[in-house]
C-alpha cells in the first residue's frame, strides 16, 4: 500500500470543513480573559513586601481552574500556559495531552490526530481549532495541520479545551469540541526571552523574543523561532525519514487607544521543510513508484482586532484576518488564501439577561497542483461562508439557576443553510456544587475533498494483462454530517484546594461519511487504459457515542498540585443496510475505551521544581495498537530570577511505542521514540 510520509495532506477524502469561528473572548462558555503574570515574586507570604512593592506585582487569575470554569455549562478545561512550560512540552499538539478527555495521537514526526469523544482520524478531525480567534482548521481535508501551529509555548497564555459540540458559539465543525489557543498580551511578555535546548527527538525548539513599549499605551513583542524534530521509526526499526525543521517569526502589538478601546495587531510567518519518502500508485509495473523528495509548508497570517467597551452597553469586538498557506510535496500541492471578518456584541447584562450576538463572513480560495495520485476537480475553488449567532444567558434566583439559549445560522457554498441550536441549563446547589446539562446540534460541513477529490490509491495487474486501479472519489451530493449531543455535568468544589469535574455525554450522529464501492469502469486517460475500481464518498452511516470524563485537582500544599483524570468512551456505528462500506465502521476502534492521567507539579526549596505526568491510553482495536503508558518528567532550577535550566524527558518508560493504528491511506503508523532533553530559558 501507499505509504505517505508526513503531513496528513496526502490524505484523501477529507472530512469536515470548519466554518465560522468567533473571536476568543466571545463565548459565554469560555472563560473571561485571564490575566497571567509575567512577574514572578517570591514566596507564598508577601507580607514582608512594602505597600509600593505589593502595588507592583502583577496578578494571575484565580479563574483558571476555579470560578469561571465552575460557572460554565459545558465540559471545559483550561490548560494554563505555565503548566505547559512546567511539563517540558515544546509544541501545541503535545500540550493538549494535559487536558482530560483529549486523545492526542502522534502519527509521525509532523502529524497528529487530536480529538475528544471519538472519531480520531488524521483526515477527519472534528475539533474546531482557533489561535487568537483565527481558525486553523483546513477546509481542504477537514482537519488541522498541527505541524505548522507551532507558536513559542512561552507566549501561550492558556488553551481552552471544550469537549462536546460548541457550534452555536464557535461555528461549524465544532462537532466534538473546540480548542481555543490564546496567546499572552504583549504587555505580559515584556523584555527579552531566549530559550535554547536539545533533545534526542525534539532536537530544537529555540525562541528569541523581545517585548517593548510604544509610549505609555502600546506594547509589542517580536519573536523568531527555530524548530527541529528528529524522525520517528517504523515498527520494523527502520527510520521513517519524516524529520523536519521549521523557522518561524511573528509579532504582536496591543494598544490602549483610550480607556474604552483596545487595538491588537498580530501576525506570523513560517516555513517548514523536510524529506518526503514513500511510494505512490502507478499504472505500469511495478504499479508503485517510490519517491524520495522534499516537502515544504509555508504560511503567513495577520490578525487585527478592535475591542470597544462601553459602560452600560457592553462590549463590541471587530476582528479581521488574512491567512495564506501553501504546502508542496511529491503527491500534490496546495495554496490557500482566507479572509475573515467577524463582529460581535456582548450586551451589558439587563434584567438577568446577558446577550451576545455576532455576524461573520469568510472567503477562502485555493489552487491545487494536482498529481496523479491526488487530484481535485475543479483545481481552483472559491467559497463563501456567512454566519450569524446569538446567545442569551438568562440568570434566575440570583444567578443560582441559568438558562442559556443559543443558535448559529450559517450559509456555506456546499450545503446552503445550516442551523445549529444549543440549549444549556446550570444550577448551583449550595455553595460548592454545580450541575449542568446541555442539548446541542452541530454539523461537520463538507470539506473540499468530500466533493471534488480523487485519490488513486493503488494499482495492480488484472487478468489478461489489464490494469486495475482502486480510486476514491468525492461526491457532490455529500451532505453535512451532524450530531445531536446530550450532556450532563457535575462539579464539586468544596475548597479552593480541591475540585472535581464530571461530564457525561450521549451523542447521536447522522449522515456519517462512508466510502461506497461502485461499479468498475474502463478509463483510457491517462494511458495505459485501465479498469477503475471506484469507491465514492456517501453519507450512509449513523452512530452513537457515549462516555464520561472525570477530572480532579488537588492542591496538597501551596507547593504541590495534583491533577488526575479518567475518560471512558464507547462508540457504536451503524451503517445503513444499503451501505457496502465495510471499513468505515473501523472508526469504532480508533479511540481507546479507557484513558487516564495523573500529573504532579511540585515546587521545591531553592527554586527547584519537579513535574511528572503519567498518561495511560487504552488499546486501539483498529490496528491492534496495544495500550501504553507514558511518563513525562521535568526538573527545573531557577538559578536566579530570569534564568532557568531544566532537564527532562517524554515517553520515559519505553524506548518507543506506537500511538496510531495507521490506515489504508497512511500505511503503517510510525512509532514515537523516547525524548530526553535539556533546556535553558533566559528572561532579560
Amino acid at each position: 500500500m501507499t505509504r505517505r510520509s508526513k503531513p496528513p495532506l496526502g490524505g484523501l477524502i477529507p472530512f469536515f470543513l470548519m466554518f465560522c469561528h468567533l473571536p476568543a473572548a466571545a463565548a459565554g462558555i469560555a472563560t473571561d480573559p485571564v490575566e497571567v503574570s509575567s512577574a514572578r515574586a517570591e514566596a507564598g507570604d508577601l507580607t514582608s513586601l512594602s505597600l509600593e512593592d505589593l502595588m507592583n506585582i502583577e496578578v494571575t487569575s484565580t479563574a483558571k481552574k476555579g470560578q469561571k470554569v465552575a460557572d460554565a455549562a459545558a465540559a471545559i478545561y483550561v490548560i494554563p500556559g505555565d503548566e505547559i512550560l512546567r511539563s517540558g512540552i515544546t509544541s501545541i499538539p503535545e500540550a493538549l495531552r494535559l487536558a482530560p478527555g483529549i486523545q492526542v495521537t502522534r502519527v509521525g514526526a509532523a502529524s497528529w490526530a487530536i480529538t475528544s469523544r471519538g472519531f480520531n482520524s488524521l483526515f477527519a478531525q472534528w475539533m474546531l481549532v482557533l489561535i487568537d480567534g483565527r481558525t486553523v482548521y483546513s477546509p481542504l481535508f477537514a482537519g488541522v495541520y498541527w505541524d505548522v501551529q507551532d507558536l513559542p509555548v512561552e507566549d501561550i497564555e492558556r488553551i481552552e479545551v471544550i469537549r462536546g459540540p460548541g457550534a452555536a458559539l464557535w461555528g461549524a465543525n465544532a462537532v466534538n469540541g473546540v480548542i481555543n489557543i490564546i496567546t499572552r498580551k504583549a504587555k505580559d511578555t515584556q523584555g527579552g526571552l531566549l530559550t535554547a535546548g536539545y533533545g534526542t527527538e525534539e532536537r530544537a525548539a529555540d525562541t528569541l523574543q523581545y517585548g517593548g513599549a510604544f509610549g505609555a499605551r502600546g506594547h509589542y513583542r517580536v519573536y523568531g523561532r527555530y524548530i527541529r524534530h528528529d524522525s520517528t521509526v517504523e515498527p520494523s526499526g527502520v527510520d521513517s525519514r519524516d524529520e523536519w525543521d521549521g523557522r518561524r517569526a511573528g509579532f504582536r502589538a496591543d494598544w490602549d487607544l483610550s480607556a474604552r478601546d483596545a487595538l491588537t495587531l498580530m501576525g506570523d510567518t513560517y516555513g517548514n521543510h523536510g524529506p518526503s519518502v514513500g511510494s505512490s500508485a502507478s499504472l505500469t509495473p511495478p504499479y508503485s513508484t517510490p519517491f524520495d523528495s522534499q516537502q515544504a509548508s509555508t504560511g503567513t497570517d495577520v490578525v487585527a482586532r478592535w475591542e470597544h467597551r462601553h459602560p452600560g452597553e457592553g462590549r463590541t469586538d471587530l476582528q479581521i484576518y488574512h491567512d495564506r498557506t501553501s504546502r508542496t510535496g511529491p503527491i500534490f500541492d496546495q495554496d490557500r488564501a482566507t479572509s475573515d471578518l467577524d463582529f460581535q456584541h456582548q450586551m451589558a447584562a439587563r434584567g438577568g439577561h446577558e446577550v451576545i450576538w455576532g455576524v461573520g463572513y469568510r472567503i477562502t480560495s485555493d489552487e491545487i497542483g494536482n498529481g496523479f495520485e491526488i487530484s481535485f476537480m475543479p483545481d481552483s475553488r472559491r467559497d463563501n461562508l456567512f454566519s450569524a449567532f446569538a446567545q442569551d444567558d438568562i440568570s434566575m434566583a440570583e444567578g443560582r439557576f441559568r438558562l442559556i439559549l443559543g443558535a448559529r445560522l450559517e450559509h456555506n457554498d456546499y450545503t446552503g443553510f445550516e442551523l445549529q441550536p444549543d440549549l444549556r441549563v446550570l444550577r448551583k446547589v449550595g455553595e460548592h456544587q454545580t450541575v449542568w446539562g446541555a442539548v446541542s446540534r452541530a454539523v461537520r460541513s463538507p470539506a473540499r475533498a468530500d466533493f471534488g477529490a480523487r485519490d488513486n490509491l493503488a494499482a495492480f495487474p488484472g487478468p489478461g494483462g489489464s490494469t486495475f486501479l482502486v480510486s476514491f472519489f468525492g461526491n457532490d451530493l455529500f451532505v453535512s454530517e451532524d450530531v445531536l449531543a446530550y450532556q450532563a455535568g457535575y462539579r464539586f468544589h468544596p475548597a479552593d484546594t480541591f475540585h472535581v469535574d464530571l461530564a457525561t455525554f450521549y451523542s447521536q450522529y447522522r449522515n456519517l461519511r462512508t466510502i461506497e464501492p461502485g461499479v468498475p469502469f474502463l478509463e483510457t486517460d491517462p494511458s495505459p487504459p485501465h479498469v477503475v475500481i471506484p469507491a465514492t464518498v456517501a453519507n450512509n452511516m449513523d452512530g452513537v457515542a457515549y462516555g464520561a470524563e472525570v477530572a480532579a485537582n488537588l492542591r496538597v500544599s501551596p507547593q504541590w498540585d495534583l491533577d488526575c483524570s479518567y475518560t471512558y468512551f464507547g462508540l457504536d456505528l451503524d451503517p445503513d443496510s444499503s451501505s457496502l462500506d465495510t471499513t468505515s465502521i473501523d472508526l469504532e476502534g480508533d479511540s481507546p475505551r479507557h484513558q487516564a492521567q495523573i500529573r504532579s507539579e511540585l515546587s521545591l526549596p531553592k527554586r527547584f521544581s519537579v513535574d511528572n505526568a503519567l498518561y495511560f491510553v487504552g488499546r486501539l482495536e483498529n490496528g491492534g495498537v496495544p495500550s501504553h503508558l507514558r511518563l513525562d518528567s521535568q526538573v527545573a532550577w531557577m538559578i536566579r530570577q530570569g534564568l532557568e535550566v531544566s532537564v527532562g524527558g517524554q515517553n520515559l518508560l519505553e524506548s518507543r511505542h506506537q500511538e496510531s493504528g495507521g490506515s489504508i491511506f497512511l500505511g503503517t503508523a510510525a512509532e514515537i521514540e523516547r525524548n530526553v532533553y535539556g533546556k535553558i530559558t533566559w528572561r532579560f
Partner: protein
Amino acid sequence: MLKAPPSCRLLAAGIAVILGVGLSGGVPAAPARIEPAPGTSVEYQIKAAFLYNFAKFVEWPPPAFDDDAPLTIGLLGEDPFGGAIDQAIEGKVVNGRGLALKRFAKVKDLQPTAILFISRSSSRDLDEIFERTRGAHVLTVGESDGFAGKGGVINFFTDENKVRFEINLEAARAAGLQISSKLLGVARIAPAGAERER
C-alpha cells in the same frame, strides 16, 4: 480493558515515581517561586498581604477591642484565599497584638471583627452586611464594583493587571477608623458623595 500486564507494572512504576518524588520532596518550609497555581493565586496572596497591612496602618478607637486580644480578621462568604491569608497572618504581631482569623459562611453568622473581608460570593448581600456592621468600628474590605459606593471602607480592584484599592473616607470616618497617610498615599480615594448617589 487492561489486558497487558506490562502496563500494570508500568503503572505501578509510574505512580511510584510520582509519589516518590512527591513524598521525598515533602512540603518544603522554604518558599518556592510563586506559581500561578490553581486554587490560590498571586492575586489573593497580594490581597492577603494587603489585609495584613491594613491591620498595620489603620487605627481603631481604643474601646472597641480588648488591648491584649488579637486583632481579628473576618472572612465572609466563599474563601478565595486558598490558605494565603492564614499564611500571611500566622505568627504576626501588629502594634503589639496578634492576628486571628474567623470565617463566616453566611451573613447571619457574623460576629464583630476589626476587619471584615467580604468575598465576591457575598457581594449581593452588602446592604444587610452594612446594616450589621454599622457603628461597630469594622473596617469592611470588599472586591466588587460599587462596594465603596455602597458604604464599604476599602475596595480592591484590578488595574493594569495589578491589585489596587480605593478608600471611602466617609465610610472610614463613620466607622471611627483612622487611616494612616501611608495607606492613603497608595490608595485611590473613592469619589466623595458616592454614597449619597445611591
